[in-house]
């Protein structure tokens, strides 16, 4: 009983520490510096692709 409790406690401490280290890493990386941007970036659809060269030229003078 006491053994399993100790194992679980150590496990939860390890997971907590991992999450905490991950958090520190993201702050240091600057992921929280611009909290405005992600809500727009999320909506960018990346399927825009450059149109075929020549196709958009229309009539050149």
């Amino acid at each position: 009983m006491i053994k399993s409790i100790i194992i679980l406690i150590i496990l939860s401490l390890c997971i907590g520490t991992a999450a905490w280290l991950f958090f520190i890493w993201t702050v240091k990386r600057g992921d929280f510096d611009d909290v405005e941007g992600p809500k727009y970036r999320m909506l960018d659809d990346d399927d825009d692709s450059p149109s075929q060269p020549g196709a958009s030229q229309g009539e050149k003078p």
Partner: protein
Amino acid sequence: MSSLNATAPVSTGSCCSISETMASPDTCVHCNLPIPPADLVVDQIDGKELHFCCRGCQGVYRIISGAGLDSFYRNRSWDQQGVASGAFDAEYDDASLAAHVIRRDETVAEIPLLIEGIRCASCVWLLEKLLVRERGITTMRINYGTHRAVVRFNPQETTPARVLASISRLGYLPHPFSPGAAQQAAAREQRSLLIRFGTAAFLSMQLMGFSFALYGGYFHGIDPDIRRLIQYLAAAVATPVVFYAGWPFLAGAWRSLRNRSASMDLLICLGVCTAYGYSIAAMIKGGEVYFDTAAMIITLILLGRLFESAARNRSISGIDKLLQLAPDSANRVVGDETQVVSSASLTPGDIILVRPGERIPVDGQILDGVTEVDEATITGEPMPALRQNGDRVAAGSLNLSTSIRLEVTRVAAESFIARMARLVEEAQDRKAPIQSMADRVATIFVPLVTIIAAGTWAFWWFSEASHAEALLHAVSVLIVACPCALGLATPTAVLAASGSAAGKGILFRGGDILETTARVDLIAFDKTGTLTHGQPTVEQIIPAPGQTETALLELASHVESGSNHPLAIAVQTRARAAGIMPAPDKPVTAVPGRGLQMNGINGQVLAGSRAFLTDNGVEVPALDSGIRTEVHLALDGNWQGLLLLNDLLREEAEETVGKLKKLGMATVLLTGDRPETARQVSDMLALAEYHANMNPADKTAWIENRQDQGHLVMMVGDGINDAPALSMADVGCAMAGGTDIALETSDLVLNRPHLESLYEAIFIARKAMQVIKQNLFWAFTYNLITIPLAASGKLAPVWAAAAMAGSSVLVVSNSLRLGRLLRRTF
């Protein structure tokens, strides 16, 4: 050339991307501006016929569309002013940019930039997408909030000048930018606060698990060994929360102790330290521990601080943006040569050359050249001003039409912009920090609690109790008086109120601003752009005898259609409203600051000021136009009539001022304008007072004077000239469309250019204050009941903890009620 204009079958418009922008045939697909028919450029792109107002727009459209980024046109929403035309002729050179480049290694370099002209999220998106397709540019990241960007490039493949040129080719103005020391410190501060909060939150979560077990053990029994183990673990996770995450509070408490004043920090520290110290002692002796109380107080209050500091940091960057307006380098003229020197090295008497499209680096006097100068960012006046020999120009204004030579009159550190930045800084320093309500409460509460605890100890000591028992009762008084509900009372109400305010485009920079806004009793308005629209409108058309209004308007629109001058745009708008399509039949010559001339089919047409027509031999009848701007028209030397233009009052101004008066506010007009204009505006809106001819320092002094008389002053303004007054006022309020600097030195931002928002802001603030008072009242009632119980030794600490949680829940739900109430009201 002509083949471009060749008529092609009009597209069916079925293809999604362009059909929406095609809706209005006489506006440019790229810039959304009306197209003067003479300049119409028709182009075929992807089988669709598109209309542009100029080759420039066509070019940019081809760049964007060619890169497959058509979504820009679908997603953009432009509600801010762009960059003035003429600003793009500036050239970038590597030598002057070299100082800003940060070299990482041989193939990686970075340049930090501040980008002018970003108006919405689509601009950011477009720039990021297009720039990385340029040769040599690896990444480009723009901050949506601050418009700062870092471009990472390969110096072997491209040069900084080419990077800046590609940005300006897209219609944005890049400025090399290195953040100041104050700003870097603020950013570090923000990060460290975030890490402190994150750490406190993660550890508190762990702690909750342990506390849960301990509470369970208290009620249902627990093995003493396991209890001891869990208590040690709880102490292990709580210690860093108190001493690392809680460090700002401990330091603040120490400071306030040294100043012999009580603050919220001291109260927090008192609660945390007793809970923590008692728990440590109890753990050693084998009693109950309350580490969770200590940790939760710190975590919750750190969260409140985090929100506050994020809002506050933006005001620091305002000053930097102000200084950025004056360019770093200038062209000094020595003999026949011009050399690029840094603006800081210029001394009075030097002669510099300012080309069209450049901002003026230092204050100076024009030696030769006649030009129009855009002073909008400085004065808020929408119309370019004519400047010629002998006139003084201010640093930061934009030279629009021709090259001018200036004699430097002040060194860069003394320029208009620098003086303005200093005024802002001084005003921010001088403004007494607003003591928040929680702090005011703490000044009474802290001594009271200490006295009661000491009294409790003394009482039990002198009665029959043992030493240890007396101490225990005193400690439970301190624990019970924990500021949890007190600490939550304000932040939660502030969050609920500012959240629902943000939904209406009203931004409060922090909780203290909300409090002060609720208590403001005097509102000072700037005129241009605040009470008025900030751009001229045709108010009246007076045709000469024998002429009709329509004919006059048509004549005017023909001459004015080619011009971007605000007056011309107003005439074009009016003409279009009357169903007239402006079309100049012949080229138009512009005489800066005076008028326009066109040799049309029907004869020579003149449009411009009274002086312009009289000088050209036209007889103009005398007329009193009051404060309005006159545009006279003549055909072949005969006066045809005039248009009267005015910067009209906002439609909602009168109603809003009326509502504000009902709330008991005094309303005042502070303007740099002429007394006649000020009186007219003041009469129309029934304002209590008006003050004309005020410069920025006058406005600041006036506000300070009123503050000394005991008023709480709100200032509403939009220009750089208002920035010092905005900082000085207890609440500085800026409206959308104002300059960035005004927006960032203000405490309250109205994102919708509508005065009604101002009334809403005050209403929300007052409601929020009511809720804060209710919350505080409840928190006190809780203390009023529990402290006597604890002092008399009747309250087991576990029940105290439960009562505390209950009072916190009550406070939070009362704040949530506020959010719902506000959503229902508007």
